[in-house]
């Protein structure tokens, strides 16, 4: 090869600089791609907060920005969970809000006026760029090949498994938590490799940040001890492991206890006990190592055996004792549901009712990870081949995360990083071997002749791909796979994950986009035209959105901390008006909001969620609300003529179909979600009146009537207004009272 001017750039120390520069440029490009691929929803719709939980986070962030950190910390929110209220400051992970708040104030300090909403919307894409960088760092620790890190960064940047939770507007804890997860792991690997206190402390610092940001920190809390435990079991104890683990555990635990919501959990909750146990164990191992240098083998063996037995016995006994006496909290329900997928459905319907807590379907893996999922085992296998400390980590992480991802859809998120690492390891190995332009044969031959006298093993082993055919076939197919991956990611992101779900899009016959904006229409109506403290009752799904967009107090919201309260709402929705009305009055409800998709065929409406309301209510009042009553004799869930009386009389049914029939010619009313023809007559609502219905009928608002001026029943009053003859009422039994049950 003739020395060209390129050689000056590509070889020697300037070559290293060139490569470094290229790497930086590639990483920046990857970060840019990661950010921009998440902007579909902003471009297609607008800069808006998505879905449900983000609305709460957004509201909390606004509160933080407006009132300062300390009042945020002490925030008691009386506009949710009326009349209970919520100690919001102590029951949330503040990391996300504080991050946005800090960014906001930094920009303000630089006198760049950026709306806090835009910061919140763009936080997740921004952090996904950082995640790609962290992924590069993490993977570079695993492999010598420089391409592995870059590939992993690119995968992480665009894989749908991560994009699903980090598109612009998806302002949820996961937005920053995945970055923190990956970066904490990177720091941990660094710490284990170097055995340095500094890296260990940094790990603890980012672990603390992670704790403040996401409940999923427990994953780190258990994975790192498990890594250490496996290392110990493999006989790989070293001072490096000791230093890094003890530093991380001590500082990290202290840090995590600063978050009010976490508090003393790290030393009291079973979920955290493994970290504590391994901390104790590593002390013992260190002690044993120390003693081993001073004692002859036999005595040492005896000592070791007795010590192991003693410690195990003491530790186990202590754990049982503390668990029984209640000092250590038992495993939480969500934890059990991780191991037994049927657990939640039986014991905690409220957890089971959330779609993202359902077990993952197989296609979801391919949908979210595409070809990474079949590269993943190859990458893990390659880790087994080297099996240094960090590779052990990859193996453990893969096994655990694969299991969890199979149990719960949302935990796909924790699987994604390690899939990217493993896939990048595998793919970089393929590319490094097959993408070498020069054939290895000539080199080895010349070397063999010139260095005949060198040691055998010192000679270059004759390894390499000779055939251009195999090279080109492999490289082409890999390129194809990569291209398909990009196409798939773009398609998935654009079609599946970029809908704000507050705004629905549909296509008009002429192909132009038609935006269905019913939610905001109704919420804004509430915000503008109702008293500031009008209480809104709705199913808990919409609590956060009402709080965020309508700015009105709600009875229940997505922070499902009080099951009884939610069951009360469920009962009000699923009971007859005569039962519901007192409940509404007792809870000062002014408006009731229901979501009805019958006109448009919007399947996520309240009637489809209705059975969950019934189930949750039944959990508290099994005598009054019975799921069986809502099914016909043949076990069907029907809303048409043949619906059960319980169904037809339930408040939810009445509110959904109130006045709906009048839109259609007589007897033609159709419910497009359930695909059935409805009864001729609209259900009669007595205690509520329609206050507002959005353009496509998705959101319907009802005002709770005040007590009748003349002291009549509402049903009588309505009948009177309609000019019906008053039925000879059966004799009144005593004074009219509010029914309380």
């Amino acid at each position, binding site marked *: 090869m003739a020395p060209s001017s390129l050689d000056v750039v590509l070889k020697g*120390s300037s070559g290293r600089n060139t490569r470094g520069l290229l790497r930086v440029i590639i990483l920046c490009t990857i970060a840019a791609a990661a950010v921009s691929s998440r902007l579909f929803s902003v471009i297609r*719709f*607008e*800069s*808006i907060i998505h879905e449900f939980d983000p609305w709460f986070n957004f509201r909390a962030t606004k509160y933080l920005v407006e009132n300062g950190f300390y009042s945020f910390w002490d925030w008691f929110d009386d506009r949710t969970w009326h009349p209970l209220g919520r100690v919001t400051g102590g029951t949330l992970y503040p990391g996300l809000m504080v991050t946005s708040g800090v960014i906001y104030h930094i920009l303000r*300090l*630089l*006198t*760049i*006026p950026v709306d806090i909403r835009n910061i919140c919307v763009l936080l997740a894409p921004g952090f996904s760029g950082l995640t790609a960088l962290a992924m590069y760092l993490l993977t570079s620790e695993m492999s010598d090949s420089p391409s592995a890190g870059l590939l992993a960064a690119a995968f992480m940047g665009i894989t749908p498994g991560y994009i699903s939770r980090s598109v612009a507007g998806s302002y949820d804890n996961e937005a920053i938590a995945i970055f923190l997860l990956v970066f904490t792991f990177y720091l941990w690997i660094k710490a284990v*490799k*170097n*055995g*340095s206190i500094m890296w260990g402390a940094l790990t603890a610092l980012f672990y603390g940040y992670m704790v403040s940001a996401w409940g999923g920190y427990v994953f780190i809390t258990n994975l790192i001890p498990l890594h250490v435990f496996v290392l110990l079991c493999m006989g790989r104890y*070293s*001072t*490096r492991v000791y230093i890094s683990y003890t530093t991380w555990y001590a500082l990290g635990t202290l840090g995590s206890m600063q978050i009010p919501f976490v508090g003393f959990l790290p030393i009291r909750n079973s979920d955290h006990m493994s970290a504590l146990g391994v901390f104790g164990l590593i002390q013992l191992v260190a002690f044993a190592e120390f003693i081993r*240098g001073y004692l*002859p*083998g036999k005595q040492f063996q005896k000592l070791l055996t007795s010590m192991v037995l003693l410690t195990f016995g003491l530790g186990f006994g202590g754990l049982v004792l503390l668990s029984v006496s209640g000092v250590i909290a038992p495993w939480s329900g969500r934890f059990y549901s991780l191991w037994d997928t049927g657990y939640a459905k039986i014991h905690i319907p409220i957890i089971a009712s959330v779609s993202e807590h359902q077990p993952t379907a197989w296609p979801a893996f391919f949908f979210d990870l595409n070809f990474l999922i079949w590269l993943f085992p190859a990458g893990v296998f390659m880790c087994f081949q080297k099996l*240094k400390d960090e590779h052990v980590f990859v193996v453990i992480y893969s096994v655990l995360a694969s299991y969890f991802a199979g149990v719960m859809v949302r935990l796909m998120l924790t699987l994604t990083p390690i899939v990217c690492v493993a896939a990048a390891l595998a793919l970089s190995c393929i590319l490094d071997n097959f993408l070498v332009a020069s054939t290895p044969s000539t080199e080895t031959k010349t070397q063999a002749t*010139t*260095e005949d*006298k*060198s*040691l*055998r*093993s*010192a000679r270059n082993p004759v390894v390499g791909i000779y055939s251009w055919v195999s090279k080109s076939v492999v490289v082409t197919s890999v390129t194809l796979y990569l291209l398909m991956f990009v196409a798939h990611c773009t398609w998935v992101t654009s079609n599946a994950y970029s809908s704000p779900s507050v*705004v629905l899009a549909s296509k008009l016959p002429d192909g132009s986009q038609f*935006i269905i*904006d019913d939610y*905001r*229409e109704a*919420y*804004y*109506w509430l*915000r*503008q*035209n109702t008293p500031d403290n009008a209480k809104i009752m709705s199913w808990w799904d919409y609590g956060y959105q009402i709080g*965020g*967009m309508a700015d009105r107090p709600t009875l229940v919201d997505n922070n499902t901390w009080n099951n009884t309260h939610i069951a009360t709402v469920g009962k009000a929705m699923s009971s007859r008006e005569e039962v519901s009305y007192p409940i509404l009055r007792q809870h000062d409800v002014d408006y009731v909001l229901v979501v009805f998709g019958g006109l448009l065929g919007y399947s996520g409406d309240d009637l489809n969620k209705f059975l969950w309301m019934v189930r949750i209510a039944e959990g508290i009042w099994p005598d009054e609300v019975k799921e069986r009553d809502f099914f016909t004799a043949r076990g069907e869930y029907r809303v048409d003529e043949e619906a059960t009386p319980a169904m037809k009389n339930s408040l939810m049914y009445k509110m959904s179909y109130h*006045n709906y029939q*009048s*839109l259609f010619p007589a007897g033609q009313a159709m419910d497009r979600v359930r695909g059935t023809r409805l009864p001729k007559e609209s259900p009669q609502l007595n205690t509520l*009146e*329609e*206050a*507002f*219905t*959005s*353009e496509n*009928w998705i959101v319907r608002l009802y*005002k709770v009537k005040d007590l009748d001026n003349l002291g009549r029943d509402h049903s009588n009053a309505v009948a009177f207004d309609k000019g019906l003859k008053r039925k000879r009422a059966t004799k009144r039994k005593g004074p009219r009272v509010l029914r309380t049950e």
Partner: protein
Amino acid sequence: MRFFTATVLALLAPCLCAATNLTTPSRLDLPSGFKPPQVFKNTNLVRNTNLEKSYVRETINVVVENVDKQPQNDYYIPFSAEVFDRVGGFEVRDKKAPEKGRFDVDYTEAVSSDGNQYFVVHLPEPLAPKSQITLGISYSVLSSLSPLPATIQQADKQYLTYSFSAYTPSAYTTDTQKTKLKFPSTNVPDYTTTDGLKSGSDPERKGATYTYGPYDTAKVAPGTEHPITVRYEFTKPVITVNLLERDLEVSHWGGNLATEERYWLRNNGSQLTNQFSRVDWTYTNYQKAPTSAVRELTYPLLPGSVDPYFIDDIGNVSTSRYRPSVGKSAGNLELKPRYPIFGGWNYSFRIGWNNDLASFLRRAAGVDSDSYVLKVPFIEGPKMAEGIQYERVVVRVVLPEGAHNVRFEILEGTNSNGLPGAEHIHAQLSSLKTYMDTLGRTTLTLEVDSLTDEARDSKLVVTYDHSMIDALRKPFTIFAGLLTVFVAAWGVGKIDVSIKKRRVQGISPIDLYVHIAGQTPSSPVDDNTTQDSPSKINLSSPRNRLGPVVVFIARASNLKDHNYPNAEINSNQMHEYLRSLLVITVAEHRKQFGLLGLRPHKMQTIIQPAHSRVSSLSRVGKYLGMALEEARASKTECIFVLHGWDGWTTDKMTIAELCQQFCDVPFSFHVYANRGTPCEFYEVNAHKVNAYFRHMVALNDPAIVGDRSTALYIRILEALPTLQYAKYYPVLSEAEKDALAKYDKRFAGIYEKDEIEGPKPEVAKSDAPKPGV
């Protein structure tokens, strides 16, 4: 950064508030019991009341005569105190010469005795006694129409009532007067008919125009009232903007005029008797029936307006549509609120757009002048047939940073422009800090109460000075800011916060030979003089605080050695023996070198034949590799202290392999030559040994000649027969062979190959230096 730039630029900044015409409207305080002096007489008065829009627009033409002896110039116009604040756009002109402009008007505080509040019109020239002047008085009264019935069904017609006095309120006696009412339609179900005020029917009806009067009121005392109420159909929304904030932002750099308007809107029409019914509304919409609700607002935009947006508190309102201007015609922004705004309902929103600045901004008088003239509409607002009333309007003109000498002016035409006189507009200057401003942008804020959409056509002219230095302030600020950041970063990078490495006693800096891939073998290796050795490791790096990784190794063989063919030693006993040797080695080593750092040292006993390979896959091999790995990770050196020259192995390949793998780790042996005399440690540089065996250096190379220990070590290794394992163990049992193969699977074949291959270089007992290649 801000502090720095602020202090520098404060020196350059001219005084902000030089010479302006800012006004704060004040009201005259009248004494209690004040009565306007009866110096005038209204000879004829005609009042035109226009009810076509959702507010009342009145024009009064009155012939005024001075009945006093002195020339007079203050004409008082009374309003009751409740109405006074809702009177907007008050203007008085000479009806005969409207082009002369409006007369100065003072506002007064309420007079406590009779609850009247006055506009005091100052005639430009005092009116001489007995002479007359015709005044054209025009104003609008906001929120004076009330719906009756107050609540209606959703599809019902809406009716408004208006109450006024048949006698026009005046401070002076009026000879004759009449009032003309103009209704939006002929549907006027109720109106007051007067008795005895005039002959004939009163009012006279002519289409949608009703006329009360003329009345002969020369004898009627001023202030006498005769209430009249009319009720008429108005099935249109009564659009009331409680507050309009309008921001105009001038950017010289961007050549852009950005407009943003924030509306707090309310429909003051009849409220709904029942709640809103979507079904009814769908039918109403389908039939395009008139309604009292706001369906849509049409907002004409000036030609050249781009990037319009329509948002409210919770984001974009997706129902809007923009029809951009074509050529000179105005664009149209069709704003459809999220929901129809019925009576009593509110809706707040904001809209904004951009314009090219060039069509609004001129340099005043000459190209080099620093003075600019900005001419923009005072308000724009939607254009609706039913009209819009604004209770309060705040217009904010954000001028470029450093603009000074700000003046404003409202253009006057021959007709009323719907605005009060400039002196009744509350104006103030402030500074607004945004987008990396240092001083803040000069902001002119104008506040007016009670406006109607008649003011749409009024123009606001703002003049200001803005020099080149002002324009360059921001680039300079950003430059200075970035420079500060870079300098700070550079400075921080210069600070050495590392804790200095402790000097290890008794150990000389290790001569390091590093094998770099691609380095030509013929290049002389002299690391003491080669300065540009790229991978030379800085041992004083802060990571090396714990000191080197020290591994003490003692080795023995428990295979049947050729020397001890019948030896049978229990391997445990052998380990014990070797451990005792290590204890001695540790003690001796410490005597010689002291404690090497704080890192705990390691001990390893190896049972392995002398010349056999230590495979990297074997337990021992991994152990050694881990030690080196640790040294690499903590950027320190790794020292293997060997008990005896064959302390771990005498196989060259083992060293070569380890060296190759860890070519970046300073890697040396301290050989405790206990069997020779004197008992001393030889410091051997493993990399040099490696380099020698790879034929990269010759034995006579200065790097090796100068290093006695290394040279000695090489010689000893050379002297030992290598890779001839089979020769010395001709009777290897099958079990031993298996063990060996398992032990060293990867290289098991090599031994045999080496034997078969050509002649070995005669190395035994040879002191001759190997020639370098």
